[in-house]
């Protein structure tokens, strides 16, 4: 019988009511009296030298308040990068300046050159068009390998080359890895592209800057996944505003998927301009603008080699990856192809020797940073594709090849520096086999064939590292931030509770799931608990939501704070019950003296805390409010096994997903309904990557699919009903909830399943196709069929 409340139950989401009635409060719904509007003039060339910006005609146009250019930001800091990677030779990465508005050069289509503030949005746009920019167009570098050639045009003139870093991991293992390849019985090699994606949360970015002359305080309302991080980066590094004079609010946010983690120029601009003008300043991105200003994701070109011995055991793995940084370093960009990618190359397998080389490259394209999964999908995709290819080359069952190489003993220290605390990869594979009806495949394939279609089946595993992570460790790895999370649990006099969390909900349902945890711990009704998030003026310093960390890290902080509440409340209860604190038990919302029927209700204790008439004032303070900061001891390691069945239309190359099954191990699960929904969404994004999506630039750096007319978003008829299971649970051993995180799994695990399935379909039809690069568009599949 499923639980009806607390941990493990699936109560309906309380936030849904406002979203379903049009009462949500998204950033674009915020309008401040007297606000002006910004239009950015953006570069329409990928690379050029700015020889002049003439704003004279534009300045006189109706409604124009002021026009800003790069010159206005000369005394202002640039957008900072939050992670410094050290290269193979111990040198720091090359780190270019990233001005708020372009100075000297433009480096990608969409790079902001000037900003017009005007009374209406259309007036701002009219004036932006009237600005005359004299740009000497320079040759653009788009292809990463070309960008690294001698004599290639440099994106940043002051850097030595377009190479951001050349990273080796683990560098000390390189010789041993090479040696193992020399001894291998079989080596499988695969070259592939992990296609550039655009996150496309349905809410475009918005920023509203406000400034109070009365208090000298700036407020930024923004579409962010982590308002405190924006406050820190923007306040300390860009605008020089101390935290106590800067408030950042991220209200209802319409999806993030990583691209709303980063600090963007438009946020700094609106905050800056509002101070300069003493007037609220609002910017709302159009979707077209989002395509050329939101950080993109993925964009790796990889060669992977897998060495096996005569028993088909993996003996070594070697990869070489080119990772596109785009024109500037977005906030966490350097960490994605390195610490979020190289550390996951062991996957679910006990490969003893691994060497990962990553060359991060500047190009004249939009900056690339974390997108749902961030590094881990890239690791999973290449590993699970090369294993599939190896199985086909060796003529062995791809599932059995995986199984024989599974890690089975935990904790397990990988050769790429992480320690998996727990897992059971056979269990998720067993569950997957049960779900996918492998035995029925042949009959389904025969039925497809009758209709002239080719059917294929692809299976893969994945592991990811979530709940990032111990601050002291990531500090050593180059992070310029801590990665703890915070929570303040404020118990009110009548017993209701406000929880101020540093996590941020933009679709994940924290307002529903977090109270389940508190209610379970206290034995009170969930409706008594309210979650407060997304406002630096209301919540303690928090690091926000990304990397599937909210429950594992933010939830753990909340547990710790609640434990402090319970400890204090027990002291109060002991006083009220005239008993020893050691004898007090909290159960079903009441404090009881163990072994007696003496008890005092939750509300009586909370009231006593705030009306301390009968209260141990000499021992404890009045009030009942506690804060905890939780810094995790390790990452968490969700893992699972996925299967995809496709049909390929050989006449057109069109691939349809017929069945998709996902068996995940997320450890303990607080709200199964929400977890299932997270997996569904991740699967659609992974299927989108595999079949539909892929930002494409021409050789001049023009984005060829900068709108939904050409960038194919998954729609309802592109996906089937999914089979999702998370009953295999090996709880995380180092956080108090035993949870691992579920937000990214679907996007990480699904692309290889789809591609494996299409390759399977083509090979079953007798085609010698070993790989097709994503997205597997009809045209590409047709070309492969007829190649």
């Amino acid at each position: 019988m499923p639980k009806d409340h607390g941990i493990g139950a699936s109560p309906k989401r309380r936030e849904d009511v406002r979203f379903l009635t049009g009462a949500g409060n998204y950033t674009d719904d915020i309008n401040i009296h007297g606000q002006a509007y910004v239009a950015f003039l953006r570069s329409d060339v990928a690379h050029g030298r700015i020889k002049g910006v003439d704003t004279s005609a534009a300045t006189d146009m109706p409604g124009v308040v002021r026009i800003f250019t790069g010159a206005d930001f000369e005394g202002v800091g640039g957008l900072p990068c939050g992670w410094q990677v050290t290269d193979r030779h111990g040198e720091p990465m090359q780190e270019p300046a990233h001005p708020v508005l372009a100075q000297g050069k433009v480096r990608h289509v969409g790079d902001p050159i000037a900003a017009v503030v005007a009374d209406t949005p259309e007036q701002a746009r009219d004036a932006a068009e009237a600005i005359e920019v004299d740009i000497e167009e320079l040759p653009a570098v788009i292809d990463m390998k070309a960008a690294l050639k001698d004599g290639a045009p440099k994106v940043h003139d002051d850097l030595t080359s377009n190479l951001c870093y050349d990273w080796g991991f683990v560098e000390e293992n390189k010789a041993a890895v090479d040696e193992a390849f020399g001894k291998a019985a079989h080596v499988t090699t695969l070259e592939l592209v992990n296609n550039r994606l655009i996150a496309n949360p349905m809410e475009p970015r918005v920023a509203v800057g406000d400034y109070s002359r009365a208090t000298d305080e700036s407020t930024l309302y923004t579409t962010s996944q982590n308002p405190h991080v924006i406050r820190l980066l923007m306040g300390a590094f860009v605008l020089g505003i101390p935290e106590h004079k800067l408030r950042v609010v991220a209200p209802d946010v319409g999806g993030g998927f990583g691209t709303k983690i980063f600090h963007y120029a438009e946020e700094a601009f609106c905050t800056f301009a509002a101070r300069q003008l003493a007037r609220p300043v609002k910017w709302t991105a159009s979707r077209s603008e989002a395509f050329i200003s939101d950080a993109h994701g993925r964009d790796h070109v990889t060669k992977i080699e897998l060495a096996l011995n005569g028993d088909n055991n993996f003996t070594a793995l070697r990869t070489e990856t080119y990772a596109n940084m785009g024109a500037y370093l977005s906030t966490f960009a350097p960490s994605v192809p390195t610490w979020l990618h190289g550390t996951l190359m062991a996957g679910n397998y006990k490969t003893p020797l691994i060497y990962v080389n990553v060359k991060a490259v500047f190009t004249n394209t939009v900056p690339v940073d974390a997108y749902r999964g961030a590094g881990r999908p890239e690791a999973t995709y290449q590993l699970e594709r090369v294993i599939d290819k190896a199985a086909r080359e060796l003529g062995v069952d791809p599932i059995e090849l995986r199984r024989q190489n599974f890690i089975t003993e935990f904790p397990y220290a990988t050769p790429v520096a992480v320690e998996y605390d727990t897992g059971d990869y056979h269990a998720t594979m067993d569950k997957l086999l049960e779900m996918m009806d492998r035995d029925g495949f042949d009959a389904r394939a025969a039925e497809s064939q009758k209709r002239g279609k080719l059917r294929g089946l692809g299976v893969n595993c994945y592991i990811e590292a979530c709940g990032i992570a111990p601050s002291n460790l990531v500090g050593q790895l180059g992070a310029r931030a801590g990665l703890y999370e915070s929570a303040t649990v404020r118990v009110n006099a009548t017993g209701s509770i406000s929880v101020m969390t540093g996590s941020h909900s933009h679709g994940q349902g924290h307002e529903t799931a977090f109270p389940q945890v508190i209610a379970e711990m206290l034995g009170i009704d969930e409706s008594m608990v309210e979650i407060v998030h997304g406002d630096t003026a209301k919540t303690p310093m928090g690091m926000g939501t990304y990397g599937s960390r909210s429950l594992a890290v933010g939830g753990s902080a909340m547990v710790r704070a609640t434990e402090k509440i319970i400890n204090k409340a027990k002291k109060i209860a002991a006083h009220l019950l005239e008993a020893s604190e050691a004898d007090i038990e909290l159960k079903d919302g009441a404090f009881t003296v163990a072994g007696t029927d003496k008890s005092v209700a939750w509300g009586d204790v909370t009231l006593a805390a705030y009306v301390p008439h009968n209260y141990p004032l000499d021992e404890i303070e009045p009030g009942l409010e506690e804060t905890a900061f939780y810094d995790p001891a390790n990452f968490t390691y969700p893992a699972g096994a996925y299967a995809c069945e496709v049909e390929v239309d050989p006449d057109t190359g069109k691939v349809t997903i017929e069945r998709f099954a996902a068996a995940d191990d997320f450890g303990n699960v607080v709200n199964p309904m929400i977890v299932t929904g997270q997996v569904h969404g991740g699967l659609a994004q992974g299927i989108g990557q595999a079949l539909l999506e892929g930002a494409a630039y021409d050789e001049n750096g023009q984005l060829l699919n900068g709108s939904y007319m050409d960038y194919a978003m998954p729609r309802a008829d592109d996906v089937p009903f999914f089979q999702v299971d998370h009953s295999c649970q090996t709880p995380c051993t180092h956080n108090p909830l035993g949870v691992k995180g579920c937000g990214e799994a679907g996007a990480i695990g699904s692309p290889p399943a789809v591609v494996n399935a299409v390759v399977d379909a083509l090979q079953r039809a007798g085609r010698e196709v070993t790989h097709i690069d994503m997205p597997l568009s009809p045209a590409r599949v047709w070309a492969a069929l007829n190649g």
Partner: protein
Amino acid sequence: MYAFDFEKPGSIADAVAALKDEDAQALGGGQTLIPTLKQRLAMPSKLVSLTGIAEMQGISKAGGEIVIGGATPHAAVADGVAGDYPALAELAAHIGDPAVRNRGTIGGSLANNDPAACYPAAALGSGATIVTDRREIVADDYFQGMFTTALDEGEIVTGVRFPVPEKASYMKFEQPASRFALVGVFVAKYADGVRVAVTGASEEGVFRWSEAEAALSSDFSPAALDGLSVPADGMISDLHGSGAYRAHLVAVMAKRAVAAAG
């Protein structure tokens, strides 16, 4: 959007008069024009809405032909001709999405002549007659290349007359993002022969595939198209498919259309 005036006349005559102003432009359902205006790719001084003109709305039959008012939305066509011309109804029922079909009009689509639009294939494939405020233009003369038609400045498509075929079908292979036709083939069998019109594929916009027409006129079966192909030269080549791919799809979709027409 740049600023413009808006006018919504109640008659064709008033609309024609309103369109005489310099840079005035007709507005059908706006499903293409408004996104174009948002990108600031057009700067009309005035938009003259055709959606308030009762005489341009609705569907009737006359002399064996279906007559569709130029301002009739796709959804109304999908409902209104389902019995008399099911292939045309099916085509209309799959233009854009439901909300687009409630606003977008047949006249607007034909006036715009997007190379990936569906209606041009139906009009050309049916040998339809485009009726304007001042004349009638047969489809073979009307379509003159991508986004180009025989319409003069200020001329309004007030209606379209479709001869009803014995059999017909439209097969569309959708571009994965826009869902417009990457290739769409309309096949219609009339007593005096078969017409095959192709949209989405050619750099010249909608065109008749005469070789297929000849083959199908003597044998209306998918097999009649075996071995026939359109040249890849002149086919659109872009992110979503090469000219060769589009040329291949023309043959595939044509066969499927013939098979579906029965």
